[in-house]
């Protein structure tokens, strides 16, 4: 357990548990989530004494439950920064309801906010919204009507594929090719080639970080000329770093944000602060958790000390974060914007080419 104090320490500081997966297969994203929360704590409002307690939840749901039990043993807490791993969130949610404890997460698993649990607050667009933007960019912006999809056969991949298929149907596009691949498949060329010759006029990828980079490399090697729109894994600086800028030329991706792209003085400051604190480039998960924790700290600074008081404030207030404006839709979904970013083939810093706001209504089935 790592303990970090934010702002000026005073008597009885507020405890803020940060239960995130910093080891295991989601450790890259989990570390970003942790760093975003910690950076917000370092910049806590003057006069608010708050102590962050980082506990690694790894990947098993029971680890997350044990982590929450441990922190609750230490006394009451007003809220928890909770794992971005959907299965861990699903395990934590009944406990949160019992304990009347708000969970702030950046998990994309759409079903988290569809279960009627009022204690979940998601500061990241759900997969449903992200895939809506993914498809809309191909259909509305690029004018493509025949889509090919290559997705991962994991829960993440299959869930995204379902939303992409629904969104394509909603927007009058045909999914002419759709195929899942396991995360350990190394030779993607046969699948990519079949996708490119399927009659599709755009190729959508919904893959994890490594396979996304592998697919883009093999797309470049095969000379596939279709427009490619990847999932959010590509926006992570660590993913783009695997590829030569030339391999990225013309490739686009959806994401909640792209901190390395800058775009506003607040974003530039966040980028500089994050780099100074952690020696790495932030991704959208780090920024989303930073924004969410900032909103929570503001609520605490205004005097909320119980889970119920924090829940009421998060459910009713809005917050102008760096990535977007956050406000609950009544189900705990706070993030309603998705951006599309594209690479120019010269640098690994993408440009934001399109922003979709208020996606909730459009995405409703």
């Amino acid at each position, binding site marked *: 357990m790592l303990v970090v104090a934010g702002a000026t320490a005073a008597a009885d500081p507020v405890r803020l548990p940060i239960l995130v997966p910093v080891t295991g297969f989601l450790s890259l994203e989990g570390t970003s989530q942790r760093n975003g929360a910690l950076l917000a704590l370092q910049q806590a409002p003057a006069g608010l004494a708050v102590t962050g307690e980082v506990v690694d939840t790894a990947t098993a749901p029971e680890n997350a439950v044990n982590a929450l039990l441990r922190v609750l043993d230490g006394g009451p807490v007003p809220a928890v920064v909770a794992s971005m791993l959907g299965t861990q969130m699903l395990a934590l949610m009944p406990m949160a309801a019992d304990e009347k404890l708000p969970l702030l997460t950046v998990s994309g698993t759409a079903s988290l906010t569809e279960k009627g649990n009022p204690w979940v607050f998601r500061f990241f667009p759900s997969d449903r919204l992200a895939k809506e933007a993914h498809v809309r960019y191909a259909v509305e912006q690029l004018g493509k009507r025949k889509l090919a999809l290559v997705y991962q056969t994991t829960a993440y991949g299959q869930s995204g594929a379902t939303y992409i298929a629904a969104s394509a149907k909603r927007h009058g596009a045909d999914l002419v090719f759709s195929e899942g691949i*396991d995360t350990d498949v190394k030779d993607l060329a*046969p*699948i990519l080639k079949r996708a490119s010759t399927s009659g599709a006029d755009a190729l959508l990828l919904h893959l994890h*970080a490594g396979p996304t980079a592998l697919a883009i490399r093999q797309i470049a090697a095969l000379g596939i000329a279709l427009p490619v729109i990847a999932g959010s894994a590509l926006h992570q600086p660590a993913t783009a770093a695997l590829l030569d800028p030339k391999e990225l030329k013309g490739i686009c991706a959806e994401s909640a944000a792209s901190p390395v792209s800058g775009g506003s003085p607040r974003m530039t400051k966040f980028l500089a602060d994050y780099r100074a604190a952690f020696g790495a480039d932030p991704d959208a998960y780090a920024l989303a958790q930073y924004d969410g924790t900032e909103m929570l700290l503001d609520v605490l600074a205004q005097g909320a000390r119980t889970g119920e008081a924090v829940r009421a404030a998060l459910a009713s207030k809005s917050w102008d974060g760096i990535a977007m404006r956050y406000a609950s839709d009544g189900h705990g979904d706070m993030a309603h914007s998705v951006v599309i970013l594209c690479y120019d083939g010269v640098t690994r810093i993408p440009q934001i080419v399109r922003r979709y706001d208020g996606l909730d209504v459009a995405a409703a089935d």
Partner: protein
Amino acid sequence: MSLAQLLLNGLALGSAYALVALGFVLVLNATGSINFAQGDMVMLGGYVAIALARLLDLSGLAVLPLVTLAMAGFGLLFSMLAWRPFRRRPPISGLLATVALGLTLQEAMNALEGAAPQAGPTLIGTGEIHLGPLGLSRASLGILVACLVLGSAQGWLLGRTQFGRRLRASAQDPVTARALGLPVDRLIATSFALAAALAGAVGLLLSGPYFVTPTSGNDLILRAYVAVTIGGWGSLKGAVVGALLIALFESVVAGYASSVVATASLYGLVLVLLAVRPAGLFPEPFGRRA
């Protein structure tokens, strides 16, 4: 994509799998036990290659001997930790020790390097080479050539040298080998060193085109295990054939059907093989481990 192109892709990928399987068989033949950390050694080799290339600013080709040397040293250390303390215990102890050390390696690399994939150096640069209508990346060509050289060298070492004869003798009957004065423990430790060196080479070869993560060895050890099961326990030739068969399924069947069908049909074939030919395609004459 033409059948010839799919076969070529499968051959290149299968070569890398074959090298992993050969390292697996080397330890299997020397100890009679399975080294489940062989895939994690490949992963470690990838990270060592990245570190050396970064530190010394060298090409993949220049780094290759350094990686194999460093990993050979690691193999000796590994044998001291995972085999030597358990050599007089039931084989399951040694097997579990390799599992434990493999997981330790994964977590150590996760802590040191993080979970993000990293790209290593390629052996002979990047880009494509065209052979008429067929295309092959330089990375894949490097894998093919390295497999041919390293695989032949291992075959020669085990089959044509005094060391190889001693190694095989000590593996077949360690008690008699000791009675005849053979340094059985040292020979087995050397086998671990050779297997680790091979893993280091594969780690470098795969880290360029396919990246490396702390858990990337998991997929490889499964393929090595299946390759050796298909080919026959302890058979070098069988390991190579098994590895190539796996890669051909991944390329050719995936090319005509899908990768899900490729995986399902491959393991379906493994089940059929286990039923009709349980000792594999090239069984050992005495079937000691079958």
